[in-house]
């Protein structure tokens, strides 16, 4: 248990339960249907699936943005139900989130300094001087110039904005990062650089990643283990080489076969 | 579709219930003793007490409400003390006149607004757009009662083309032609503001829709511009404009208050203004409730039309 950064058991999330105004039963969607998973400390676990597979709902539950309908979650060994009772700060200190659309994840009307200061102040309780120093360090870590601080999000490209968003996630000094399609909104050359950055940061700060993605090639490049999701369930879970070399599940095989390849099969 | 309409009809019951509560509460906020207003100089303490008992005003508010609403449901809105006749009779008689005026104005403003808006959008920045934009801007910036006065001055007093006031001529008349002649000025005045609002919204909606991807698809298919605009763009824009027409029905019904006063149209608006100044509370209560309920029905109709046009909402 202590070796696991995240451990979930029988996690389920349903939407649309209850009855409508006229008493008719509503359509219930099981977005996540009894999932058990573990993210080991220091590893990158990829959760792969297509739209509607429930992978994003899973990710949102792991940081407390969504409440599970049933099941257990332990984050850094602590019970998530207890964390939730203590409010969002308790979550924010141990697990952080990187969003798919970097531009949408930064408030257009606040400077980068405003955005980065919040976790330093509210989660870590640093004073103004320490905050200033930390912000410079963080921007340096994500290869952004120091004059970034006084600028607004729209002044940056998608790739730069994602670096800033990663810096914000790091500012919380949490050891676990949930990466929700962190590169799928970016152009390929930018995507490669961000993946490289994520790999370096992981080594440097000893992080654990849970990577949500639909792109098998990206997953193969940076993860240690893979879980394949279909309709709210995990259909296959194995180390990365194994999944790609010997996929067990029919759906996994279909996914791999569907991915476009650069060279016609030789 | 009919199931949907039935569902929507059922859903207005709580709205009507809420309306009645608001009307009741607003009227019960009236300071001073209604009995004194009714009795005037006959307001001896004994008389006041008797009236209060007769009207049920000595009971708690909640009980008063249920007595009132119970009577209303049975068609008993009480008696107007100033006119000394049942409120419902007076209200329905007046409401008929208002419906004629507001109905004609609503049709007028919808047709004019939609046409002006589409022309304005399609000919953006052309002379027609500029002229329409100017007229619309002037129209929505003008007090309607003032416009009414000016129209009376011009058309009735100076040029003697149209009657200045009333619904029918006092001597003779009384036929449809007479009614229409009397309608022209008040209905146009009432329609001006609403037409302006609808025209602006139609223009904006058309311009927005014309930029959308499915319009480009229609063009890529090789459809002539006329079809692109009317079959594709206008259809989609209309869905956004119809709820606005529903809201405008409210402005037209409300605006009738001014117009009826200016043109001495024997409608419910003029009646309300008089009833307020004579503190004829039951008459005000009944009138407001009937007009507001009809407004709810108007909006329901707009909703249903919108749903018929847009398959996405039907689900």
């Amino acid at each position, binding site marked *: 248990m202590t070796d696991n950064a995240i451990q979930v058991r029988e996690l389920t999330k349903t939407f649309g339960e209850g009855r409508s105004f006229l008493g008719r039963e509503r359509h219930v969607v099981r977005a996540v249907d009894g999932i058990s998973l573990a993210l080991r400390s220091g590893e990158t676990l990829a959760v792969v699936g297509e739209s509607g597979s429930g992978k994003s709902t899973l990710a949102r539950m792991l940081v407390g943005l969504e409440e599970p309908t049933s099941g257990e979650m332990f984050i850094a060994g602590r019970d998530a139900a207890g964390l939730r009772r203590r409010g969002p700060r308790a979550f924010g200190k141990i697990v952080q*989130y990187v969003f798919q659309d970097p531009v949408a994840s930064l408030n257009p009307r606040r400077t980068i300094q405003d955005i980065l200061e919040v976790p330093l102040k509210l989660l870590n309780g640093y004073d103004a001087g320490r905050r200033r120093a930390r912000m410079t360090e963080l921007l340096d870590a994500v290869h952004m110039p120091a004059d970034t601080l006084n600028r607004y999000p729209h002044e940056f490209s998608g790739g730069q904005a994602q670096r800033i968003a990663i810096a*914000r996630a790091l500012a919380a000094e949490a050891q676990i990062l949930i990466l929700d399609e962190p590169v799928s909104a970016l152009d390929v050359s930018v995507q490669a650089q961000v993946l490289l950055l994520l790999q370096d940061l992981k080594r440097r700060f000893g992080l654990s990643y849970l990577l949500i993605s639909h792109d098998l090639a990206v997953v193969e490049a940076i993860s240690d283990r893979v879980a394949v999701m279909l309709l709210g369930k995990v259909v296959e879970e194995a180390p990365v080489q194994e999944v790609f070399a010997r996929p067990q599940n029919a759906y996994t095989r279909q996914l791999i076969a*569907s*991915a*476009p390849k*650069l060279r016609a099969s030789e | 579709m009919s199931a949907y309409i039935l569902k929507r009809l059922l859903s207005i019951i709580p709205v009507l219930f809420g309306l009645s509560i608001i009307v009741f509460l607003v009227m019960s906020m009236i300071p001073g003793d209604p009995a004194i207003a009714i009795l005037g100089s006959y307001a001896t303490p004994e008389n006041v007490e008797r009236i209060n008992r007769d009207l049920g005003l000595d009971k708690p508010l909640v009980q008063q409400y249920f007595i009132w609403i119970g009577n209303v449901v049975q068609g008993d809105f009480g008696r107007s003390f100033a006119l000394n006749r049942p409120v419902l009779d007076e209200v329905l008689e007046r409401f008929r006149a208002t419906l004629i005026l507001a109905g004609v104005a609503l049709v007028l403003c919808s047709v004019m607004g939609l046409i002006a808006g589409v022309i304005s959008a399609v000919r953006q920045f052309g002379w027609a757009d500029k002229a329409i934009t100017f007229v619309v801007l002037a129209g929505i910036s003008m007090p309607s009662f003032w416009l009414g006065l000016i129209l009376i001055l011009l058309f009735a007093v100076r040029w003697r083309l149209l009657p200045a006031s009333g619904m029918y001529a006092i001597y003779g008349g009384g036929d449809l032609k007479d009614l229409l002649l009397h309608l022209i000025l008040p209905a146009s005045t009432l329609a001006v503001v609403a037409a302006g609002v609808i025209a602006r919204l139609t223009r904006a909606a*058309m311009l927005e829709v014309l930029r959308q991807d499915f319009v480009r698809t229609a063009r890529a298919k090789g459809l002539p511009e006329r079809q692109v605009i009317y079959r594709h763009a206008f259809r989609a824009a209309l869905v956004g404009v119809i709820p606005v027409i529903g809201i405008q029905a409210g402005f037209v019904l409300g605006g009738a208050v001014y117009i009826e006063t200016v043109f001495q149209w024997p409608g419910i608006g003029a009646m309300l203004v008089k009833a307020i100044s004579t503190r004829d509370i039951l008459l005000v209560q009944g009138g407001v409730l009937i007009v507001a309920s009809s*407004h709810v029905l108007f909006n329901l109709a707009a909703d249903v039309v919108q749903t018929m046009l847009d398959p996405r909402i039907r689900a």
Partner: protein
Amino acid sequence: MTVATSSGPTPAGSRNQVSAWRLLLNNRLAAVGLVLLSLLVLVALLAPLLPLPDPDATAPAERLQPVLSQGHLLGTDQLGRDILSRLTWGSRVSMAVGFAATLVAAAIGSTIGLVSGYAGGRTDNLMMRGVDMLMAFPYILLALAIVAALGPGLMNALYAIAIVNIPFFARNVRGVTLGLSHAEFVDAARLSGKGHLSIITTEVLPNVLPVIVITMSTTAGWMILETAGLSFLGLGAQPPQADLGSMLGEGRAQLFTAPQVSIVPGVMIFLIVISLNVLGDGIRDVLDPRLRSGALLRPGPRTEVHSDRAQPANGFPSAVLNVEGLETGFVRNGHYSSAVKAVSLHLHPGECLGLIGESGSGKSVTALSIMGLVNSPPGVIRNGGIYLHGDDVHSMPDTRLISCRGSRVAYIFQDPLTTLHPMHTIGRQVEEAISAHQRLDRRALQERSVALLERVGIRDARERAKHYPHQLSGGQRQRVGIAMALANDPDVIVADEPTTALDVTVQAQILGLLKELRRERGMALLFITHDFGVVAEICDRVAVMKDGVVVETGPTQELLADPQHDYTKRLIACVPEIGRGSDFLARVRSVFDAGNKP
């Protein structure tokens, strides 16, 4: 990818916030409104200091003097009071009440909207039902009822008008807040440790503020009109106090003998309200980013072609489609900037050419320029010739160009949900594609359309034809898009990122379908994409675009295996590929390390 994004994000925000005033003043009408309004407000504020007679001093001997009479510039009213003086003091009252009502309604309505939109769920439901209830009353009627209850008087009129306008603020603000409360930056702020109150005030409110300001500027005019209206009916200002409405009401009795008594205050109301409305429109245009980026310009039926474009000769007469030296750009705020610079491409009959590039490379603009589908304004084809079977497309008259669209060159677009008309059945949309170019009776039309839908792999096509786009899955919708493109057996199909919005398994099916159709019908395909994997699957040749220029063209396998241009090399190196595992990062690292060396 849309034209708007590919033409590069227009910098907005801080710099433009500073120049918001500038923008407002650039709008001539708004500037006039601002000047007029300032003047009126100034006069109203200075009323006590101006050399005006007492507005309430009656002088029966001098009653109903005409305009421009001695000592009374605007004449006198029925009691001999000076109209100019009463007008000035009355405007003061009317504006004060109107603006105060606006502020009250904005404060209460916005708070309701913020709380309701942010909280969502049951709170939202309850609050909005209440607001709906207020909206259920015809606008003025509720104000009347409130005044009836509170008794006539100016303050009561103010309350009534403020209450009646609360729903407009509540609904507008709630709508925006609802969207924002699910925004990723709000989630991010929550994870950064912010509480609800702090999120509402520091994250949501700054983004809602423009909406509040816009609503204030558009409703202030109404509120002044409504205040005047209540006073006109005798329910607002009570004598001897006068606002513009009560002046009008009192003057009504003299309408036939001395019309100026009622016309003059009406003109004043009109001036105040029109200046407010014009200014409000200007403010809305400045604060609404959609309007600023020219999103509300009416696009013409074809892209504008610059009158003295350079038109290179047709270098590939055998090609079915040949693009020579195409330059397309956008005119924004009077400045032209090009999105595509000198692109030349050709497409042989039956060939599939891939056009690949990153966002902003100009690939979609190139695709849309071919048949003049770039929205104009702001798009302009500045230079170049586009030869379809040797005829220059942009020299064709409108009717000829339109008749070529769909019949000779058909398009398939990226997101089939937004590119199909949401209110027409898919069957009808396919029929329309056919009937635009072929005269068939209804029955034959239907048969053709069902056959086409069957051909692109839609099961139960006859039944499905009656469905609307939103009832289909993404893959099925794209099949409908393909069916429409096939309707007239075009020589060329331009497919603009047709699989980008789809899942990989669906993408594979659609690519398979396109390959099959191409083999079967021998049509040429111009395939726009950002994905090298997709190019490798389907294209014979590929052209790589960067910053509006084609940097390299070649047969697909050759170009992928041995790219010549530095940009292409780097781009291909950055594409992660299944089967390479973690080598990928090592390769990328070497690419960027090499790039960083001087």
